[in-house]
């Protein structure tokens, strides 16, 4: 019981996820700054930001829905924390695993997006309203390719468990080469999921200030920001577990490999963020439906055929 609780709350659960999330955010900002010829923030910056927001006054707008306004950040964070339980950090030892947890993870992944939408909606500010509508519109664009790209490898592995997939691919690494298109689709739509440039329309600073979070301040904003960095860890871990399966069986070595893999995913995402202009909503939807989705569909068909041959 105690060990299960430790697993869920400390390592590799919530506490580890938050700490690693803050570190990944630092890495992301540092790489982004270096790519722009700046020196970037010091290593403790995300932690300082988080602590500062905890100490700030929390203002709730008079015409916002008080209860929803308070509860949504917590829902968002807890959904991400729950999803992280099913993702393997150490080899073969996620905090919990069962057949079909991939579906659960994907399902839980939509909750932060939906709570962001609701947060904007209940803020009753024009910028927040437009931002939240964009959040939802964008979700319909990237969700399909993201799901399909994550499901395609599952077809070959013939398991719906993240851990199972990771095991299958680490035993048969060559099969993984088949999934390379899906890997890139997942990375790019993952960028959309995380609402980072070029898909940062919901919080497009120059258009709608800060999108759904425009009215949030203090602790509630801190929780939302924490939820965003945890989502970053979750996406990076999920992609590296499904598409970069390299496992040795040695827990320490696997943990190191996990760090390397997630950081590699993050570097790619940071590069993507720095090299592109923000897309417009119509361009983003077109891009997702005309380019990403067909690639993912073709991937699924190929994987189905191969599975039939096997």
């Amino acid at each position, binding site marked *: 019981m105690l060990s299960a609780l430790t697993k869920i709350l400390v390592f590799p659960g919530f506490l580890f996820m938050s700490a690693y999330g803050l570190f990944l955010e630092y890495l992301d900002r540092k790489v982004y700054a270096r*790519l*722009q*010829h*700046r020196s970037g923030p010091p290593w403790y910056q995300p932690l300082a930001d988080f602590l500062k927001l905890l100490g700030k006054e929390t203002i709730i707008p008079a*015409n916002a829905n008080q209860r929803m306004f308070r509860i949504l950040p917590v829902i968002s964070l807890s959904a991400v924390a729950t999803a992280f339980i099913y993702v393997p950090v150490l080899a073969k030892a996620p905090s919990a695993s069962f057949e079909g947890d991939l579906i659960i993870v994907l399902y839980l992944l939509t909750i932060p997006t939906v709570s962001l939408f609701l947060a904007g909606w209940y803020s*009753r*500010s*024009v*910028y927040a*309203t*437009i931002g939240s509508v964009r959040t939802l519109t964008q979700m319909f664009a990237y969700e399909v390719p993201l799901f399909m790209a994550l499901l395609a490898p599952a077809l070959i592995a013939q398991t719906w468990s993240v851990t199972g997939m990771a095991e299958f691919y680490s035993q048969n690494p060559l099969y993984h080469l088949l999934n390379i298109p899906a890997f890139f689709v997942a990375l790019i739509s993952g960028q959309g999921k995380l609402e980072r*440039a*070029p898909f*940062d*329309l919901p919080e*497009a*600073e*120059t*258009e*709608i*200030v800060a999108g759904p979070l425009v009215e949030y301040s203090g602790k509630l904003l801190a929780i939302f920001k924490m939820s965003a960095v945890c989502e970053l860890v979750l996406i990076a871990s999920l992609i590296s577990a499904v598409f970069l399966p390299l496992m040795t069986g040695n827990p320490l070595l696997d943990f190191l490999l996990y760090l390397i893999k997630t950081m590699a995913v993050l570097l790619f995402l940071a590069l993507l963020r*720095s*090299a*592109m*202009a*923000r*897309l*417009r*909503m*119509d*361009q983003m939807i077109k891009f997702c439906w005309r380019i990403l989705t067909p690639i993912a569909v073709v991937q699924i068909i190929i994987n189905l055929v191969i599975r039939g041959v096997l």
Partner: protein
Amino acid sequence: MKPKKGNNRIVIPIGPQHPSLKEPGCFRITLEGEKVVHAEIDIGYNHRGLEKACESRNYIQTLYLIERVCGICSHTHSTAFCQGIEELAGLSIPPRAAYIRVIVSELERLHSHLLWLGVAGHEIGFDTLFMYSWRDREKVLDVLAEVCGNRVNYGINTIGGVRRDLDESMQQNIAKVIAFLEDQLKYYLDLALTDPTLSARLAGIGKLSREDALKYGAVGPVARAAGIMEDIRIIEPYAAYIEVPVKPVTDTRADVLGRTVVRIQEMLESLEIIGYCLKNLPGGELTVKAPRRIPAGEVISRTEAPRGENIHFIRANGTDILDRVRVRAPTEANWHGMKHMLEGEYLADVPITIAAIDPCYSCADRAIVINSERKTEMMDWQGLREYSIDWYKKRGLDLSAVKMPERKIYI
């Protein structure tokens, strides 16, 4: 700030404080979904009463005040003003001064356009471009600081010439910066024309066709991007532009991409001009002596600011204090087409469309726009009272002792 519902329309205010606007200006955009159906422009937040202030200062003081019309294109304003005064006083400036004015004015164009390029990048969410172009801009500011002593508001012009000389080492430094910028600018031009996300966000946005540009009286890069060759440096040369060859830069795209390309090519042209000026810099004096009292008369003086045609109307009355100055900054001319450009666009394109005319609110805010709906919120009773007391105090009437009954209803 509340969304006004009705026919699914939302009114979204952009400004006066808004991350895409570095200066206060307010755009009330009516949206239907993501489409802009109506745009209302409300400026005047930056109106400081500068023209009026000029009327109570002598010519040298006015010169520094005129420079503060705008911090980005300060040199072009002081040039236009000096030229006007020089014409009234019948002075002709020494050739070296004319060349130095041109060099500083082209350096200013470089820094202003690089600044614009960065802001444009920021508006479309491409912060890397913003950082790159501002990094290069620092080099231009370095030489400007070396030549003029200040990074912004150069203060190099004076009536009858310029205040500082370009020595040998400054010329070498300018030449170095030109060589450095040439490569960078070619890279940016290539980027603008080939980068897929950049051209996806810039092409076809903020269309202002040749006919519309003429109709709305657009100036500067906005007009030139629509194929109208309108450049004061060419059609009515001043200072050393009379001798220095200036190649016209136009484009036919008539959209934001066209304006970007025009600006980058103009920067390349500026490099050529600076190079020519440095090579042919004449020797001699820097100033001619200017009289303290300027003979009565009226003059219109035009210069080519980075943003377009800048017009100063000056009326002198024979004393050492000028009678009237009117500044028509280029942004003021470009505002008129803005509504036309915005309507029918996506909300996502609003910031870049506004940015594409390179608006300079402090230049343009020559008058307060009194908007009845908005004005009522602006000043409460107490504020109005203080204002009126101040107003009368300046006219020698102290009413502050008059007690007013406490009003319950605030206007």
